[in-house]
């Protein structure tokens, strides 16, 4: 949920990286933290176990600077991927503006990818998002670990996870490959949604005026979005 604070002149967006255990969510944030200039990012917070498995979440704030008089920030979160942290994942999803689903390309993780996506669908419905908002929620898919031997073909991952053809990227997060592209895509999708909501409001009967036409492409999502979860 974008928070527009006119006193602080700030706009905040929340993006959540979701996916099965050890798929590379935390690695995405670490590589972004390494890559971004210090003045554009805050401290990377990791609530992890002694073995560096995410226990609750990782958090990285990114500062786009002042745009139109408003300091614009993206808050990036990861969820713990292991199956038994189900309730922790739901806690992190509160108030999200966009999702990056990180899939593991290892052949042994195909089922884990599918289960994680179904789990995400269940949580989004549990959080009480109306179907219309669920349908418009921006999504980006990242097929990570493309360097593993016998990686699952992208076509197969797409068919299983992303039949709705949301933006998708191949990556090797450990090398930083595909990481920035993924974040750039979800940031732009979230901004497009902000613009389109206000454009919609402008065109609606009795709606309030907005600032003219913007990027209004609706989000493309997994097949279950807006329908039965966990399909």
């Amino acid at each position: 949920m974008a928070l527009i604070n006119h006193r602080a002149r700030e706009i905040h967006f929340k993006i959540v990286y979701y996916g099965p255990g050890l798929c590379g969510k935390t690695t995405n944030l670490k590589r972004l933290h390494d890559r971004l200039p210090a003045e554009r990012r805050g401290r990377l917070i990791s609530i992890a176990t002694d073995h560096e498995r995410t226990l609750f979440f990782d958090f990285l704030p990114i500062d786009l600077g002042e745009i139109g008089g408003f300091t614009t920030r993206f808050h990036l979160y990861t969820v713990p991927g292991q199956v038994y942290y189900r309730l922790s994942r739901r806690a992190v999803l509160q108030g999200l503006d966009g999702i990056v689903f990180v899939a593991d390309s290892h052949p042994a993780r195909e089922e884990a990818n599918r289960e994680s996506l179904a789990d995400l669908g269940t949580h989004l419905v549990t959080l009480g998002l109306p179907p219309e908002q669920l349908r418009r929620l921006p999504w980006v898919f990242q097929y990570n670990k493309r360097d593993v031997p016998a990686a699952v073909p992208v076509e197969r991952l797409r068919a299983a996870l992303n039949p709705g053809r949301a933006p998708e990227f191949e990556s090797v997060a450990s090398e930083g490959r595909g990481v920035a592209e993924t974040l750039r895509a979800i940031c732009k999708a979230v901004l497009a949604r902000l613009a389109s909501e206000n454009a919609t409001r402008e065109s609606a009967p009795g709606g309030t005026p907005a600032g003219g036409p913007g990027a209004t492409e609706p989000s493309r999502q997994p097949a279950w979005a807006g329908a039965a979860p966990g399909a």
Partner: protein
Amino acid sequence: MPQWTLFENDFRAIDQVLDALLEKTNALSVHLIDRSGQLITTSGRSADFDATAFASLVAADFTANAEVSQLLGEPSIEAVVNEGKSRSVYSCLLADRVIMCTVFDRRSTLGLVRLRAGRAAKQLDSVFKKLFEKVGLVEAGRGTSDFAAAAGREVDALFGD
């Protein structure tokens, strides 16, 4: 999720309540934090810690504790207390989605903070509920498309090759 816009006049009533809470409890600072982890406003002294990180951790902590309460069969959670050696934090929920977080030291007591924070939360509850009724009705977006386009260019500059 719908965007949520806070204008300067929204803050007037909020400021009054937070300032009064600080004065009556001798607390160090009070913070309003959205459950998504975003800081809404602060009253008092908070310059010596990372407020952004603080907000994200408080929100996650509160939500995790709410889940613990549900597991124990409680319908909701009243408050979360973080007791430190020199500074402590008392967090409670208002209007179902805003966490009011009071930071205090030995010049105050948990009992006093709990009492006064409870009263302040009741006052703010109605303020925020009225505010949420406006969600989707406020004029949020003169120039929003321009903003989104400009922000998109910044994103490209930051992450482009």
